[in-house]
């Protein structure tokens, strides 16, 4: 039963909270939707911390897509052996993980020590930063240390298929029962993080300005249609 809860009920609830929350915030609270930068207060620490963290987390995201979303069979059909995969995963993933953790530690120290930044850091800010830090630290530990000292865990036969099965609405929760606890915990916390996205400043991850390079530099809008974006 606990298997069903943690690997079926919990993921769906958290994802539902995330999706409904994001839609609600986008529709009704968009004025609060922003990347809450504190660069105006402090620049030196942010320069290193923010850049390293954000690029790290983009690499980590790509790594998760490669490890969890892309099936093992794809790698096999491309002729990538399990050994090659794991070397790449450990080196690449480890590097990304270290960037995320290192950047976040810098940002957290900055948040706690810079007087201007500290005053304006609320519960949500700390919650998001610390939760991301814990999840990332666990991930980095699993990649760099657990994988190399205990066993190079083949998550592509258990976690991968289970995660993909969530999206086909046929969750294979029994696949998760044999997964080491550390991995299970990482996943549960990650889903908790997903659920918190709409309620924290993490929403800005959905604000990638992808249209910017293609759009006209100058934007004209008439007053009547000021809500609608208009191209020149």
């Amino acid at each position, binding site marked *: 039963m606990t298997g069903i809860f943690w690997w079926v009920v919990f993921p769906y609830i958290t994802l539902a909270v995330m999706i409904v929350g994001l839609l609600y915030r986008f529709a009704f609270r*968009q*004025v*609060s*939707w*922003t*990347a*809450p*930068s*504190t*660069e*105006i*207060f*402090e*620049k030196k620490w*942010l*320069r290193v911390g*923010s*850049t390293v*963290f*954000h*690029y790290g987390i983009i690499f980590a995201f790509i790594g998760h897509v490669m490890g969890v979303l892309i099936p093992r069979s794809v790698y096999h059909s491309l002729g990538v052996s399990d050994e090659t995969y794991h070397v790449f995963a450990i080196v690449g993933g480890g590097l990304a993980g270290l960037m995320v953790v290192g950047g976040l530690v810098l940002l957290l120290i900055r948040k706690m020590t810079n*007087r*201007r930044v500290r*005053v*304006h850091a609320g519960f949500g800010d700390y919650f998001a930063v610390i939760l991301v830090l814990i999840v990332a630290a666990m991930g980095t530990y699993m990649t760099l240390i657990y994988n190399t000292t205990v066993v190079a865990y083949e998550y592509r036969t258990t976690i991968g298929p289970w995660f993909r099965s969530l999206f086909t609405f046929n969750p294979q929760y029994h696949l998760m029962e044999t997964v080491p606890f550390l991995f299970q915990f990482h996943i549960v916390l990650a889903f908790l993080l997903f659920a918190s996205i709409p309620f924290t400043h993490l929403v*800005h991850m959905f*604000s990638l*300005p992808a*249209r*910017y*390079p293609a*759009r006209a*530099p*100058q*934007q*004209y*809008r*008439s*007053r*009547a249609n*000021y*809500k609608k*974006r208009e191209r*020149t």
Partner: protein
Amino acid sequence: MRIKAQVAMVMNLDKCIGCHTCSVTCKNTWTNRPGTEYMWYNNVETRPGPGYPKEWEDLKKFKGGWVLRNGKLTLRAGGPITKLANIFYNPNMASLDSFYEPWTYDYDNLIHSPKSKHLPVGRPVSLITGEFMDKPEWGPNWDDDLAGGSEIVPLDPNVKKLQEHIAMEYEKTFMMYLPRICEHCLNPSCVASCPSGALYKRDEDGIVLVDQDACRGWRFCMNGCPYHKVYYNWNTHKAEKCNFCYPRTEAGMATICSETCVGRIRYIGVVFYDADRVKEAASVEDPQALYESQLSVFLDPSDPEVIKEARKAGINDSWIDAAQRSPIYKMAVKWKVALPLHPEYRTLPMVWYVPPLSPIMNHIEENDLQTDHYIPAVDQMRIPMEYLASLLSAGDTSVIRRVLLKMTAMRVHMRNQAVGGMDELRHSKLLEEAGITVDEIEDMARLFAVAKYNERFVIPTGRREMDGEEGLHYKQGACSIESITPSSDFMSHLFAKEE
């Protein structure tokens, strides 16, 4: 031709007394909320001086505005790809230290202090951290009226450009005031810098606004604007800027800074321009040609062809009439006495300035008080022409000289009318060099000196007929409680024209 209307402003620096009333009324109207303490949509700078924020004209530091690279107009701080790569940290953005840490005073201590031997003190309290500040070291107008003198003045990027080192010798010091608001540019680099497309220029009146819903706080507008007139609200984490008091101008009223201007230095009016030619005008090679190329974008509102095109573009007759009576068009285009601030930024700014006259350095003898003797006097004014040129004409002193000659001619002529004793201006060399006619000078004198509210501010009301598809007929029959209004089908049926 794609004709658009722009509500623009001219400030006559000759009349600015540096009282900061504009800044204060603007602040009370717009930026008296947490997060906006350091924002001055309107500020008045003493020049020479570092300005606000400090050294905002230092393009190497903040990389604002446009630059011509291989004949192509690009943002100085880099195009979209550079911006996306730098989205996690904006290297060119000013921090609060370039502005100042806003503070208040512990007034409570003054009121509730127990009886004591010494007078109670209201210590400064930071509005950012809430902590006491031992010693505020910079603040709004810290350098007012050249305060800080020889330590502060050299920070002015325009001073650094001057060939002749303007020593802070007592006899040679000069100063002027420069009130600044958002320029509501024709080619705004803040708009082009915004990854989210939140900044936009309004079709109806050219006012540049920030969509507070769409803004994601990427902050590229802050330094993308070379005038540094877009601010980041640390409370809402969104950008804010001068909105040309659009709720007032839509109602035909002057902006609050203009309304309350003690010296009555501000003028507001409509200018028509050809939006299709903006990019071309901003792309001319020579920075000193930008002033003329911007002038070429403006359209003559009395030209029947322009009127026809304006009507076609949905500009109504009250706007066309306002454009014809526009004080801005007169000063900027007709008489050419108003100049754009830093045209070399290539944003085609729309708040223009009449450069100030200043005391003449050398004494003019009584018997020299003849019209043409004022020509060399223009070259000996206290404010170096190079300095004014660095601000208003990309360094071209001939532009400044011509304006100063016009203003001097105006003074000479009006003085002669009032007290006499001078030779006629009509045939003088002064008038010839100034390139203006006596009639124009008299019109100018009226607008500069005696014009009343309705002449200084020719602002047509917002074009409400452009609001929404239902149109005004529908809104007239409706009430604010939208849900119980008759359906628009019903109303449009009533007003439908019979075919």
